[in-house]
């Protein structure tokens, strides 16, 4: 039944501190779901395969199947892999459960854009030095790797999610 659900990150706030989770599937109306019975939990995934802190759902819910969730900032920058669990026990006795991962890299992408913006000027200069843009290439490659892992995870649900978390932490270090 969980296949019928379509929970996804609908939007990340421009300050990169919160994101909106939503599900636009028709399942809820077709099955006359009692929204008060839906439980949504978001938890950080650690790189060592353990689960981290449960994340605040700051607005609960905005509109039946839409939640605003705070990106957990400390000790990290908020980017990372999050576990999303959605469960529902309706009065009819049908039970649905969704357990998936969210890959969120808004701060890394923002900082990467900053690096591109600054270093693209440097690329125009006659005394361009390759070593000046090595960090840019590293961050770009790591971000690409996270996107690849995300795509594969969505297809096969393997455990590479933890590798993605490791990569995101490395990106954070390079940017710092």
């Amino acid at each position: 039944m969980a296949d019928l659900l379509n929970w996804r990150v609908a939007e990340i706030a421009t300050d990169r501190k919160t994101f909106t989770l939503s599900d636009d599937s028709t399942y809820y109306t077709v099955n006359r779901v009692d929204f008060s019975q839906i439980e949504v939990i978001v938890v950080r995934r650690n790189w060592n395969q353990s689960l981290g802190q449960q994340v605040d759902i700051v607005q609960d819910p905005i509109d039946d199947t839409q939640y605003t969730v705070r990106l957990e900032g400390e000790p990290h920058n908020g980017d990372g892999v999050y576990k999303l669990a959605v469960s529902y026990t309706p009065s009819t006795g049908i039970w649905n459960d969704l357990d998936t991962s969210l890959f969120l890299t808004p701060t890394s992408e923002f900082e990467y854009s900053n690096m591109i913006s600054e270093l693209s000027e440097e690329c125009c200069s006659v005394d361009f030095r390759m070593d000046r843009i090595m960090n840019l290439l590293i961050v770009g490659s790591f971000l690409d790797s996270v996107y690849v892992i995300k795509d594969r995870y969505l297809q096969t649900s393997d455990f590479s999610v933890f590798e993605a978390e490791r990569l995101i932490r490395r990106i954070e270090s390079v940017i710092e």
Partner: protein
Amino acid sequence: MPNTILFNVDSITADRQTAVVKYDDPADTQGGLFVGAFKVNDEAEETAISITPDDDPWNVTQWEVELSVDGWYRISGVIVPDFDPLEVYNQYDCVYSDGENGFGVYRYKMNSPSTPGNEYGPVEFSNLWDFIEDPVRLAYNVGEENESANVNCGIYDVILSPNTEYEYAKYLASLGKEVCSVDCSLENLEMIIRLATIIDGMTVRNDRSEMPAGERLARRAVNIITQMNG
């Protein structure tokens, strides 16, 4: 009505000479639609460029804009409502006269709101109305004292980089083979990375509406491409 017309570049032709521009309809599209295209330099100075059609203020849904070099382009437009003799007009409101009593855009002069009526239409009564030579310029009055509050406006700035991207792809294709060889030149690879970063830089500047910086990157990219091809 600032920026109620939302333009976008829908596509660029394979020869990179023409951009197809479309727009999202604002709610009120009755009236005359006037659009202009400009190449803008890094000091924000506009040079008008060819846009077609440029003579049909009705029912146009897309335009073809002539591209020359990469960089900062601007599409500006206004939709001026049809003249209505029963409408209350404020100072600086504009109307479009569709040809029955003349043709063109007129701006109301009176500093108190009033209903001109048929006998004081824009063409017949120049004491009430100024003829607007270049209606597109009304878009630039948004936020100014003489803003025409009843006119839908749109100014769309964009950094376009089709030529740089084309040269990058060409260079990439030629280097593909070289990368397979044992005497692969790192110097050439460096050049590819520089160009890729400059293209990405233009995209970031465009996303952040930092147009002068995007335009400067486009100009510098030309030098690097010349160097590469040399």
